[in-house]
């Protein structure tokens, strides 16, 4: 029956913490802002549980993220199975409930890496972790008013990607390739998706420096190859030879565009996004001019690593500058010159990363508009 005893102990402990924290929350919320660290002692743990909370593994992107988390755990000399998986299946409620359950189970001795599924859910998750004395690092989702430095040491870091900058870079590569004049078309993702909006904005930003290039048209292709193929056919009818370059919101769209061009015997430079293996091959063949890789494997590993190393006391988050608490993930540009090298280094062999080089590949502090 010892597990019941343990559970009750854990529950009482976390309830006590909770009461303390809420009492503190009422009286001292203002004080916290002034004095920084949380009054709950910044406990350092010898062997905290390491957990990753995410959507599910059937999505290739999240599979990469979690494989990075596993690689990090293995680098500590533990087995893959040491990583606890909290799978939210796209539910914020489940995400929060699982975190609370794990906090109770581990008594707060937890290093948690999490994507909270949606931005509003980040605050309750972070507050639950901070109150229980756990260490948490977030990826992708959080609201703009939630900052790690407002929570002392326990909210270790947040990482996200801005697609606007990289999409602007690929646009520049495209615009240079067409000699800075002519017309370009853009095929976007699902119109309401944030990355779709950012990637189109990136193109628009680049176009400001190329007054002789006209954005002929921008239509959503819903991240879909067949849809992209049809939209591109329409563009070819409408603009024909006026199209001197194509800016695609991702690789999948690019495949459809390439086939539409091929059917017409047209040879027009295109750029894509995401760095899928197949797109990298096409870049190597010179059929795609450039794509962007965001290295989800590293992102997943380093998010877990930051939470873990803060939890064991290897570094003190509150002593780090803001750009080490909220930062953009890496982006790697792939062009025909380096495609083969990239493929050998990143796709055929997953590189062994130094999981204590927390900020080396990162991309600067997150900026809010």
């Amino acid at each position: 029956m010892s597990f019941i005893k343990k559970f009750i102990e854990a529950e009482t402990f976390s309830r006590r913490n909770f009461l303390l924290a809420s009492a503190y929350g009422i009286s001292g919320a203002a004080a916290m802002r002034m004095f920084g660290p949380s009054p709950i002692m910044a406990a350092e743990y010898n062997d905290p549980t390491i957990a990753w909370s995410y959507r599910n593994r059937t999505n290739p992107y999240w599979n990469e993220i979690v494989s990075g988390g596993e690689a990090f755990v293995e680098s500590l000399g533990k087995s893959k199975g040491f990583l606890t998986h909290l799978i939210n299946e796209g539910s914020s409620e489940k995400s929060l409930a699982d975190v609370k359950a794990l906090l109770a189970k581990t008594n707060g001795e937890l290093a948690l890496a999490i994507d909270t599924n949606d931005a509003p859910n980040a605050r309750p998750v972070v507050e639950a972790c901070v109150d229980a004395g756990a260490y948490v690092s977030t990826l992708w989702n959080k609201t703009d008013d939630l900052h790690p430095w407002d929570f002392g040491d326990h909210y270790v870091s947040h990482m996200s990607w801005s697609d606007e900058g990289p999409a602007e870079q690929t646009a520049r590569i495209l615009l240079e390739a067409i000699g800075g004049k002519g017309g370009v078309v853009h095929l976007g993702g699902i119109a309401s998706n944030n990355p779709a909006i950012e990637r189109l904005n990136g193109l628009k930003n680049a176009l400001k420096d190329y007054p002789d290039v006209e954005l002929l048209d921008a239509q959503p292709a819903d991240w879909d190859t067949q849809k992209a193929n049809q939209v591109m056919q329409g563009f070819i009818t409408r603009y024909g030879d006026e199209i001197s370059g194509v800016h695609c919101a991702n690789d999948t769209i690019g495949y459809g565009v390439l086939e539409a061009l091929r059917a017409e015997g047209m040879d027009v430079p295109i750029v894509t996004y995401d760095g899928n293996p197949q797109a990298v091959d096409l870049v190597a063949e010179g059929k795609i001019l450039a794509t962007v890789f965001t290295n989800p494997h590293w992102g997943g590993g380093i998010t877990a690593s930051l939470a873990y190393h803060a939890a064991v006391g290897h570094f003190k988050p509150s002593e780090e500058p803001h750009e080490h608490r909220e930062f953009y993930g890496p982006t790697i540009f792939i062009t025909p010159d380096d495609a083969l090298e990239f493929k050998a280094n990143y796709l055929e062999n997953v590189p062994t990363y130094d999981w204590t080089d927390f900020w080396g590949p990162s991309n600067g502090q997150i900026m809010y508009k």
Partner: protein
Amino acid sequence: MTEFVTGGNSPHINTLRNIILKWAPLFVLASLVLLFPIFEWLEDFWRGKDHFYLIDSRFFSIRNASRIAVAATPGLMIAIGVTFIIIMGSIDLSMEGTVSVSAVIFAFVFIALGGTLAGWAWLAIPIALVVGGIMGFINGFIHVMFRVPSFMVSLAMGFVGTGFALVLTGGDRIRVEDELFRSLLTVRWLNFPIMCYVAMLALLVAWFIQSRTTIGRNFYAVGGGEELAIASGLNVSRVRIMGFTLAGIFFALGALMAVGRIGIAETATGNNFMFISITAVVVGGTALWGGIGGVLNTLVGVLIVNVINNGMVVIGLPNWLQDGVLGVLVITAVVLSTNRKTISFVK
């Protein structure tokens, strides 16, 4: 065009309403083809450019006709398949799953057998058609033997198919790069790629099945009045199972065209075909409760859908408007083709 209302169950075959119904889809298609160039003419007129109506139109050109034809080909195959089912008064919603499974298995077998049509890899084509047929047979069998409504069986089989395709590929795409197979798209006779001629041949076969074979007539018999068909000694269960199997084979043919068009087989190959094909069948004038319509109506319907899709982009209207316009067309077509005097209630 005499086949438009083959086996029609309306007692007033030559009323004005029936004549309008018979020719409305073709009229809509012709109007659309003439409408889009007007927008182009207007646009150039505002810009002050010389533009002679139709002659200078980019939309109304042989190059664009071939683009529309290429875009329409996979959808036409799938819509023909579902036409048979709708004539019987049932519905088949499994096309997305069936297309994905057939496409993926085709690509796997094609690559495994050497990856070129010049070798043994041609066997992948009949194998894909058999796979489609099996999926359709399962649909029909469950529908008939377990008395499950066809829309439920086929919708579920569609999900099973999509899931199965995902298991097979693990989310990867398979590229089919054989020049000979891709000549479906890249080689043109009289401005149109080979795949358009293959589609015409398939349409001819479908038309033959529909109007010159017993099974074709039986589809109309079942759709026109099932009780009557049973009373006449027709084995309706057998007809239904054969119908679903035939539909599955045409779905697989659509899958081959889809792979031929973009050179990639993946779980997403089947995406969007449900909406496009059902829309095309209904807009073409085949009635949802069965007995009326046929594959030639479906050809007109598929062309209407694709002319709208293409024309919207050509005249620069936003993408979301296309779905809206198609939705309105579907409702209009159903309202037009419903004879409210003979239907006592709708559920």
